């Protein structure tokens, strides 16, 4: 059967249940596609034997009937997730050789639902980056290509985005601290959802900024996002911030329409110098939701412009604390020591060798903003601003807004290496539309909505109310159908 790797999760699920295909066939098709796509550098730890074993087990379960929701569906897992016995190194040299003795809760949930793991996916080191150029494994390449340039798939979940867009897996896990699911989804023409903070357990996911990090699915369609998100979510006693709320049937939530619902269009997201194409896409998306029966209301989120600077205090502060554990003692890399070196030299040399430059920069910025004398001026001020950013959203939801529509990114995918000489702040601008959502703990989804004049995908972002992912997915499904985005990258790899 031709090109099983191109199926969506929903299509593959239905074919498996109708006994038209087996999980082994699906899995082999993905493994073959991934083997031919080494150029993209998306998969960095392949587990074909494990995948085929899992696929055989899934086929046996399917034959018996009553298979769990994702039984037999081959997916990729971001390298940030600890996977038992399989290399998990957050794309960092400092975790070289680390093979966890345990499985992250989210990946365990997926395995329990019968999913097949094809391997681990490339990413920015410790999820710090917006272009997947900070990985110890090297850059990930976007399967979309319009000229001689190699383009970034975005970051930090760039390997996941590239693998899904190039049909190397049916779907993949991502994580999102400031936009790391939604920005790469937009750059590669796929769907990515970051759920409400607390929906997915963070246990076993290498921590970057604990108050912002959330896992989520990266998929070919909104329906697939609903299927996979439902599997990933759920209360976990091992993460004290995981919420003890029932997980709704997200796929069922796609039914029905959005008539009478209210969509807010925030004026602060209309940035100076925003390309016309992004502006037009946003207006088109607004019109589509209006045509589907939604009421459109202009809203204001007055503290939006302070979200990025607040993020670049809070996230590095938390990172400096979380990454203190990489000291060459318990796991990963330890520097070779010189005669007379003590434990402090061991820490300093290990961390200088093991962390890449962006990670070092953020750890040190975090150290600075938390240090005596600056804590109030930077860290506490940023947390106060975060309170105000969250209140902006609470105010508009209290006015009756059901969801907010914005662009997902300020541009389409840019060339690898193009930002090399820019100062770090220029790269941070990539997250300008997504970072507010992490600071406010809200669910956000990026939906592919069109191509720019170069022929590169552009995404729109919908932001929902806390724990209303079902409603958010319904809006996204409506937008997806109206936009009718079906373009795929032409295979060149």
């Amino acid at each position, binding site marked *: 059967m031709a090109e099983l790797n191109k199926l969506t999760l929903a299509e593959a699920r239905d074919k498996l249940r109708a006994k038209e295909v087996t999980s082994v066939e699906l899995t082999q098709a993905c493994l073959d596609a991934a083997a031919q796509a080494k150029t993209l550098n998306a998969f960095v730890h392949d587990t074909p034997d494990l995948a085929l074993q899992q696929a055989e087990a899934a086929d046996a379960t399917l034959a018996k009937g009553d298979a769990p929701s994702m039984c037999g569906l081959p997916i990729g897992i971001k390298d940030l997730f600890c996977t038992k016995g399989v290399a998990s190194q957050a794309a960092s040299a400092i975790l070289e050789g*680390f*093979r*966890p*003795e345990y499985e992250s809760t989210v990946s365990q949930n997926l395995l329990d639902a019968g999913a097949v793991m094809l391997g681990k996916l490339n990413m920015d080191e410790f999820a710090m980056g917006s272009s997947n150029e900070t990985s110890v494994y090297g850059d990930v390449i976007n399967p979309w290509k319009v000229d001689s340039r190699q383009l970034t798939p975005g970051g930090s979940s760039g390997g996941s985005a590239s693998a899904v867009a190039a049909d190397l897996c049916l779907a993949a896990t991502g994580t999102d601290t400031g936009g790391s699911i939604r920005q790469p989804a937009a750059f590669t023409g796929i769907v990515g959802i970051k759920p*409400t*903070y*607390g929906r997915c357990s963070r246990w076993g996911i290498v921590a970057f900024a604990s*108050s912002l990090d959330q896992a989520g699915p990266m998929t070919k369609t909104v329906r697939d996002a609903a299927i996979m998100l439902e599997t990933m979510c759920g209360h976990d*006693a091992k993460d*004290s*911030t995981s*919420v003890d709320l029932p997980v709704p049937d997200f796929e069922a939530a796609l039914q029905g329409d959005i008539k009478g619902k209210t969509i807010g269009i925030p004026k602060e997201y209309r940035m100076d110098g925003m390309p016309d194409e992004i502006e037009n896409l946003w207006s088109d998306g607004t019109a589509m939701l209006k045509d589907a029966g939604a009421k459109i209301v202009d809203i204001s989120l007055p503290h939006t412009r*302070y979200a990025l*600077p607040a993020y*670049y*205090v809070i996230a590095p502060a938390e990172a*400096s604390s979380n990454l*203190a554990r990489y000291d*060459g*003692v*318990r*796991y*990963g*890399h*330890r520097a070779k020591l010189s005669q007379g070196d*003590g*434990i402090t*030299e*061991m*820490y*300093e*040399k290990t*961390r*200088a060798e093991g*962390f890449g430059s962006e990670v070092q*920069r953020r*750890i*040190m*910025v975090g*150290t*600075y*903003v938390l*240090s005596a004398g*600056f804590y109030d*001026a*930077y860290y506490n*001020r*940023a*947390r*106060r*601003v*975060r*309170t*105000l950013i*969250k209140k902006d959203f609470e105010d508009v939801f209290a006015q009756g807004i059901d969801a907010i529509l914005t662009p997902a990114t300020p541009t389409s995918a840019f060339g690898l290496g193009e930002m090399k000489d820019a*100062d*770090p*702040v220029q790269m*941070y601008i990539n997250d300008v539309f997504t970072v507010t959502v992490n600071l406010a*703990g809200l669910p956000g989804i990026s939906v592919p909505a069109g191509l720019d004049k170069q022929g590169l995908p552009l995404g729109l972002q919908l932001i929902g109310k806390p724990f209303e992912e079902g409603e958010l997915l319904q809006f996204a499904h409506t937008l997806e159908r109206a936009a009718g985005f079906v373009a795929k990258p032409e295979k060149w790899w």
Partner: protein
Amino acid sequence: MSIDITMAAKVAKLARIKVEDDALPALAEEFNAILGFIEQLEEVDVEGVEPMTSVTPQRLKRREDVVTDGDQQDKVLSNAPDAREGFFAVPKVVE
């Protein structure tokens, strides 16, 4: 607030990351670019606003203070760069 070379060296020391002396000027410059960006926050009126401690309204879950796990010395040590006789080994800490 401007960061000079002495402050950059101090921050690197606090972060336990070895930075060679000749790399300090560039590092200080990067810090200043980032801090210049962050300083926009000074424009915001935060009088009377509480710093956020939890983005969701829930109180952290509590459980009985009892042992729920343990006896996994081999697993705990399995990834250590240097483990000996059931312990993590590090360079000499006290004379």
